[in-house]
Protein backbone atom coordinates (compact mmCIF):
# COMPACT_ATOMS: atom_id res chain seq x y z
CA UNK A 1 0.00 0.00 0.00
CA UNK A 2 1.34 3.41 -1.00
CA UNK A 3 1.59 6.20 1.57
CA UNK A 4 -1.25 8.25 0.08
CA UNK A 5 -3.63 5.37 -0.55
CA UNK A 6 -6.95 5.67 1.30
CA UNK A 7 -9.96 3.49 1.99
CA UNK A 8 -13.51 4.64 2.68
CA UNK A 9 -16.52 2.62 3.74
CA UNK A 10 -20.25 3.08 4.10
CA UNK A 11 -20.69 -0.21 5.93
CA UNK A 12 -21.75 -2.13 2.83
CA UNK A 13 -18.71 -1.57 0.64
CA UNK A 14 -15.17 -0.26 0.99
CA UNK A 15 -13.81 1.98 -1.76
CA UNK A 16 -10.04 2.08 -2.20
CA UNK A 17 -8.36 5.18 -3.60
CA UNK A 18 -4.85 4.94 -5.10
CA UNK A 19 -3.87 8.43 -6.29
CA UNK A 20 -0.77 7.19 -8.15
CA UNK A 21 -2.99 5.18 -10.51
CA UNK A 22 -5.23 8.12 -11.40
CA UNK A 23 -5.02 9.43 -14.98
CA UNK A 24 -7.53 12.26 -14.40
CA UNK A 25 -10.20 10.90 -16.72
CA UNK A 26 -12.65 12.73 -14.44
CA UNK A 27 -15.57 10.31 -14.74
CA UNK A 28 -16.02 10.06 -10.95
CA UNK A 29 -16.41 13.74 -10.11
CA UNK A 30 -18.24 14.61 -13.32
CA UNK A 31 -20.88 11.93 -12.85
CA UNK A 32 -21.21 11.80 -9.05
CA UNK A 33 -19.84 15.00 -7.60
CA UNK A 34 -21.61 14.69 -4.25
CA UNK A 35 -19.53 11.60 -3.49
CA UNK A 36 -16.34 12.41 -5.41
CA UNK A 37 -15.55 16.09 -4.85
CA UNK A 38 -11.87 17.00 -5.41
CA UNK A 39 -12.34 20.35 -3.63
CA UNK A 40 -13.51 18.71 -0.39
CA UNK A 41 -11.44 16.95 2.29
CA UNK A 42 -11.76 14.07 2.45
CA UNK A 43 -12.70 14.17 -1.20
CA UNK A 44 -14.70 10.91 -1.06
CA UNK A 45 -17.89 10.85 1.03
CA UNK A 46 -19.73 7.58 0.57
CA UNK A 47 -22.75 8.76 2.59
CA UNK A 48 -23.84 11.01 -0.28
CA UNK A 49 -25.21 8.34 -2.64
CA UNK A 50 -26.47 4.78 -2.73
CA UNK A 51 -24.09 1.83 -2.77
CA UNK A 52 -25.26 0.91 -6.28
CA UNK A 53 -24.59 4.42 -7.61
CA UNK A 54 -21.10 4.37 -6.11
CA UNK A 55 -20.30 0.92 -7.52
CA UNK A 56 -21.44 2.08 -10.97
CA UNK A 57 -18.98 4.98 -10.91
CA UNK A 58 -16.09 2.97 -9.43
CA UNK A 59 -16.50 0.36 -12.15
CA UNK A 60 -16.29 3.11 -14.77
CA UNK A 61 -12.96 4.40 -13.42
CA UNK A 62 -10.60 3.41 -16.28
CA UNK A 63 -7.73 2.49 -13.95
CA UNK A 64 -7.33 0.83 -10.57
CA UNK A 65 -7.25 4.26 -8.89
CA UNK A 66 -10.76 3.51 -7.63
CA UNK A 67 -11.72 -0.05 -6.71
CA UNK A 68 -14.21 -1.44 -4.24
CA UNK A 69 -14.98 -4.54 -2.25
CA UNK A 70 -18.16 -5.65 -0.57
CA UNK A 71 -17.99 -5.88 3.22
CA UNK A 72 -19.25 -9.37 3.92
CA UNK A 73 -19.42 -10.16 7.63
CA UNK A 74 -16.42 -12.22 8.69
CA UNK A 75 -15.58 -13.37 5.16
CA UNK A 76 -12.30 -11.58 4.57
CA UNK A 77 -10.99 -14.30 2.27
CA UNK A 78 -13.70 -13.58 -0.29
CA UNK A 79 -13.31 -9.86 -0.36
CA UNK A 80 -10.73 -9.27 -3.06
CA UNK A 81 -10.93 -5.80 -4.57
CA UNK A 82 -12.51 -5.52 -8.00
CA UNK A 83 -10.06 -5.06 -10.84
CA UNK A 84 -10.40 -3.74 -14.35
CA UNK A 85 -10.39 -5.98 -17.47
CA UNK A 86 -7.20 -6.11 -19.57
CA UNK A 87 -6.89 -3.69 -22.45
CA UNK A 88 -7.35 -4.62 -26.12
CA UNK A 89 -4.69 -4.52 -28.86
CA UNK A 90 -6.06 -1.54 -30.76
CA UNK A 91 -5.28 1.75 -29.07
CA UNK A 92 -8.28 3.83 -28.05
CA UNK A 93 -8.10 7.57 -27.59
CA UNK A 94 -11.06 9.14 -25.81
CA UNK A 95 -11.56 12.86 -25.38
CA UNK A 96 -12.67 13.49 -21.79
CA UNK A 97 -15.13 16.36 -21.35
CA UNK A 98 -13.17 19.44 -20.24
CA UNK A 99 -10.26 17.13 -19.53
CA UNK A 100 -7.42 15.15 -21.06
CA UNK A 101 -7.15 12.57 -23.83
CA UNK A 102 -7.46 9.14 -22.29
CA UNK A 103 -5.30 6.61 -24.16
CA UNK A 104 -5.88 2.89 -23.62
CA UNK A 105 -3.71 0.16 -25.12
CA UNK A 106 -0.07 -0.69 -25.75
CA UNK A 107 1.87 2.01 -27.55
CA UNK A 108 5.01 4.13 -27.64
CA UNK A 109 5.21 7.78 -26.64
CA UNK A 110 7.96 10.01 -27.96
CA UNK A 111 8.38 13.10 -25.80
CA UNK A 112 9.40 16.54 -27.09
CA UNK A 113 13.00 15.92 -25.94
CA UNK A 114 13.16 12.73 -28.02
CA UNK A 115 13.01 10.20 -25.19
CA UNK A 116 10.70 7.22 -25.64
CA UNK A 117 8.31 5.75 -23.11
CA UNK A 118 6.37 2.53 -23.45
CA UNK A 119 2.75 2.62 -22.28
CA UNK A 120 1.38 -0.84 -21.55
CA UNK A 121 -2.21 -0.18 -20.51
CA UNK A 122 -3.40 3.37 -19.97
CA UNK A 123 -2.33 6.97 -19.66
CA UNK A 124 -3.74 10.42 -20.35
CA UNK A 125 -2.39 13.26 -22.44
CA UNK A 126 -2.65 16.95 -21.60
CA UNK A 127 -5.07 18.84 -23.81
CA UNK A 128 -5.07 22.23 -22.05
CA UNK A 129 -1.37 23.06 -22.34
CA UNK A 130 -0.99 23.66 -18.58
CA UNK A 131 0.34 20.31 -17.31
CA UNK A 132 3.77 20.35 -15.68
CA UNK A 133 4.31 16.75 -16.80
CA UNK A 134 4.02 17.18 -20.59
CA UNK A 135 2.83 15.50 -22.69
CA UNK A 136 0.88 13.75 -19.91
CA UNK A 137 -2.02 15.12 -17.87
CA UNK A 138 -1.28 16.07 -14.27
CA UNK A 139 -4.75 17.39 -13.42
CA UNK A 140 -3.78 21.08 -13.85
CA UNK A 141 -6.90 21.72 -15.96
CA UNK A 142 -8.99 21.25 -12.81
CA UNK A 143 -7.17 23.99 -10.92
CA UNK A 144 -6.73 26.47 -13.72
CA UNK A 145 -9.96 25.99 -15.67
CA UNK A 146 -10.40 24.32 -19.06
CA UNK A 147 -13.95 24.16 -20.42
CA UNK A 148 -13.83 23.62 -24.18
CA UNK A 149 -16.61 21.04 -24.14
CA UNK A 150 -19.44 22.91 -22.40
CA UNK A 151 -22.12 23.39 -24.97
Amino acid at each position, binding site marked *: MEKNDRSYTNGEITVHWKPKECVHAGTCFRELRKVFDPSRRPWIDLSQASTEQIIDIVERCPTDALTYERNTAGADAESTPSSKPPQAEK*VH*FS*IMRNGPILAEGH*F*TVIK*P*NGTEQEIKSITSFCRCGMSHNQ*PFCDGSHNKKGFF*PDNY
Partner: protein
Amino acid sequence: MNNSPDKTKVTAIKDGPLMVEGNFTVKGVEGQVLSTMDKVFLCRCGKSANKPFCDGSHRNK
Protein backbone atom coordinates in the same frame (compact mmCIF):
# COMPACT_ATOMS: atom_id res chain seq x y z
CA MET B 1 10.19 6.04 -40.50
CA ASN B 2 7.08 3.90 -40.90
CA ASN B 3 8.83 0.77 -39.67
CA SER B 4 5.88 -0.99 -37.98
CA PRO B 5 2.58 0.43 -39.19
CA ASP B 6 0.43 -1.41 -36.66
CA LYS B 7 2.25 -0.42 -33.49
CA THR B 8 0.73 2.87 -32.43
CA LYS B 9 3.15 5.70 -31.80
CA VAL B 10 2.36 9.02 -30.13
CA THR B 11 4.84 11.79 -30.77
CA ALA B 12 4.57 14.98 -28.75
CA ILE B 13 5.97 17.49 -31.21
CA LYS B 14 8.04 20.21 -29.54
CA ASP B 15 5.80 23.26 -29.06
CA GLY B 16 3.26 21.53 -31.27
CA PRO B 17 0.50 18.91 -31.32
CA LEU B 18 0.39 15.20 -30.54
CA MET B 19 1.02 13.21 -33.70
CA VAL B 20 -0.68 9.81 -33.46
CA GLU B 21 0.20 7.07 -35.96
CA GLY B 22 -0.79 3.42 -36.21
CA ASN B 23 -3.82 1.31 -35.38
CA PHE B 24 -6.18 3.37 -33.23
CA THR B 25 -9.51 5.16 -32.93
CA VAL B 26 -10.35 8.59 -31.55
CA LYS B 27 -13.65 9.08 -29.73
CA GLY B 28 -15.26 12.35 -28.65
CA VAL B 29 -16.82 13.33 -25.33
CA GLU B 30 -20.08 11.57 -26.19
CA GLY B 31 -18.28 8.41 -27.27
CA GLN B 32 -18.78 9.18 -30.97
CA VAL B 33 -16.02 8.07 -33.35
CA LEU B 34 -14.12 11.12 -34.59
CA SER B 35 -11.42 9.44 -36.62
CA THR B 36 -10.44 6.04 -37.93
CA MET B 37 -7.52 7.37 -39.95
CA ASP B 38 -4.03 6.01 -39.36
CA LYS B 39 -2.53 9.40 -38.62
CA VAL B 40 -3.97 12.40 -36.78
CA PHE B 41 -2.70 15.51 -35.04
CA LEU B 42 -4.33 16.25 -31.69
CA CYS B 43 -4.30 19.69 -30.07
CA ARG B 44 -2.31 19.96 -26.84
CA CYS B 45 -2.29 23.74 -26.36
CA GLY B 46 -6.03 24.20 -25.77
CA LYS B 47 -6.38 26.87 -28.46
CA SER B 48 -7.48 24.96 -31.56
CA ALA B 49 -10.87 25.92 -32.99
CA ASN B 50 -11.13 22.37 -34.36
CA LYS B 51 -10.63 20.42 -31.10
CA PRO B 52 -9.59 17.77 -30.46
CA PHE B 53 -7.57 18.19 -33.65
CA CYS B 54 -4.79 20.67 -34.18
CA ASP B 55 -5.50 23.64 -36.47
CA GLY B 56 -2.14 25.37 -36.06
CA SER B 57 -3.44 27.88 -33.48
CA HIS B 58 -0.50 27.12 -31.15
CA ARG B 59 1.68 29.22 -33.45
CA ASN B 60 -0.48 32.34 -32.86
CA LYS B 61 0.15 33.90 -29.48
